[in-house]
């Protein structure tokens, strides 16, 4: 059976004046999968998901969510979508609990049901003790969790998470990750953006890497690593002598110099890598698993974007 696409974009374009933020991209998100949008600042990730959540009308192209057009059927789409935005927009005039109850009202959820769900969601994100606490008195990690809970108040089929763990401590990040996994198990379709490659690797079934408004690569994280980097990366100090040795012994290797270290990528390196390791271990050579960050930096470059 073919997987069923929940979100479909064709030639999706967004322009702000003369600036093209999203440049004719095509993508699909399938039911029950977690798709991650990766990309440097300004790549067009947030603009793309703003179009999916129907708050930003596309300039051109076609975008459907659950078969509904984002322009014509925004209300129906919003009804089944949960959004956890990048910015904290919790209502500072209310307590944690009331934030959820008031938000439930916008979805036309009856009061008794709204109370029940709010209690349950506070439990889900481990904030039951903070039920009567005003937003100002929550830590940033608690606020992120409450935003996640709020995004779930309408029992969404599609969940949009814009940088869900930016600025959080490791404990808070792991809690959010656990919750996202639980939701995935409940067949919720999840679209997230992140700057953390470990987050994308852990959570996403598939990632789309964007740069300058275009999709430059997409696929399963593990497959992308294998395709672009290989299994392992060797790092040695940036000395002329070491560099010459590697170039002689291992001419097909790709070298990249970063912060006075040389990174060596190769498709089938084991044997050669072991030889280099033995020779330069005492001078700080290390071997590590290739990761998504290597892929990301290789594809988008190391130049700062802002």
């Amino acid at each position, binding site marked *: 059976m073919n997987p069923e696409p929940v979100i479909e974009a064709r030639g999706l374009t967004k322009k*702000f004046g003369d600036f093209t933020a999203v440049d004719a991209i095509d993508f699909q998100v399938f039911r029950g999968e977690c798709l991650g949008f990766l990309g440097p600042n300004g790549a067009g990730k947030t603009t793309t998901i703003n179009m999916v*959540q129907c*708050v*930003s*009308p596309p300039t051109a192209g076609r975008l459907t969510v659950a078969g509904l057009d984002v322009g014509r059927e*925004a*209300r129906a789409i*919003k*009804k089944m*979508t949960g*959004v956890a*935005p990048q*910015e*904290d*927009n*919790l*209502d*500072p*005039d*209310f307590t944690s609990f*009331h934030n959820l109850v*008031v*938000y439930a*009202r*916008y*979805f*036309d959820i009856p009061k008794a049901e709204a109370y029940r769900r709010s209690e349950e969601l506070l439990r889900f994100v481990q904030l039951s003790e903070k039920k009567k606490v005003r937003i100002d008195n929550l830590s940033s990690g608690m606020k992120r969790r409450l935003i996640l809970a709020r995004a779930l108040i*309408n029992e969404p089929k599609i969940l949009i998470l814009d940088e869900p763990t930016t600025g959080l401590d490791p404990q808070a990040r792991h809690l959010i990750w656990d919750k996202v996994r639980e939701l995935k198990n409940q067949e919720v379709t999840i679209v997230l953006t992140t700057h953390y490659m470990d987050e994308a690797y852990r959570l996403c079934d598939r990632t789309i890497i964007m740069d300058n408004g275009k999709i430059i690569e997409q696929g399963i994280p593990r497959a992308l690593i294998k395709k672009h980097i290989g299994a392992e990366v060797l790092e040695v100090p940036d000395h002329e002598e070491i560099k010459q040795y590697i170039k002689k012994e291992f001419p097909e290797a790709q070298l990249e110099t970063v912060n006075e270290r040389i990174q060596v990528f190769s498709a089938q390196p084991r044997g050669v890598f072991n030889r280099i390791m033995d020779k330069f271990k005492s001078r700080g050579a290390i071997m590590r698993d290739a990761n998504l960050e290597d892929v990301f930096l290789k594809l988008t470059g190391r130049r700062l974007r802002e």
Partner: protein
Amino acid sequence: MSRVKILSLLVRPELTRRVFMVWRRNFDVFMKTYKTNFIPPLVEPLLYLVGMGYGLGGFVRPQEGLRYIVFIAPALTAVSMMYSSFFECTYASFVRMYYQKTFDAIIATPVSLEEVIGGEILWGATKSLINSTIVLAVVIAFGLVSSPLFLLIPPLSFLVGILFASIAMCFTAVTPNIDSFNYPSFLYITPMFILSGTFFTITGLPQGLQLLAKILFPLTHAVNLARSLVIGRLNSGLLVSLAWILIATPFFFVLAINLMKRRLVK
């Protein structure tokens, strides 16, 4: 700006009962602090009636044939309609829109931006209703009401509230920052407060200013109507005032929503 762009500012908004969900959010916040919210509309008219009505009134000859305190009392209800709705939909709405991102949070739900702005304006009108009714109660307590028509003041305050809230929302849609509200506040609202027949009859003003007050100042018409209802003195001029308000209100209401869409839909 091209003709098409100007016309797009007058497109009829699609509103559903969801405007009341937005209204209700603001009402809930109001009720959390209701005790402090009642202080201004209770204290201000007391001070004006005692200070200006009794104090200054001793030196002022009757205006339009009315004792000075009788003359200003109905105007105070109209002034409170203006201030409460105007400030609700300038400073308070701007804080919700810009600093609290409340609008962003709401439009991620089935409630549309049009409905958010509609709800905000409706709430501004409700503030006008609440505050001016309290002022009216003070005026009644001072024994300054002489006609049962005063019962029409609350519905009038809601209508006038929609008008001022809509005008306020137009400024909110174009203001670059919260400090810039000083322009409409001091160049429009404060002159209106003084020159709309509130504390002296506008026939005392130079011809040009009189005309200006009638054409540009909604408060002139609100004061005119409020005074007639409180003292029970009806004349054909009231129809002009009512017509002015009935035409301006839907115009600014629609304009406010479209200007806000232009600001926020990106």
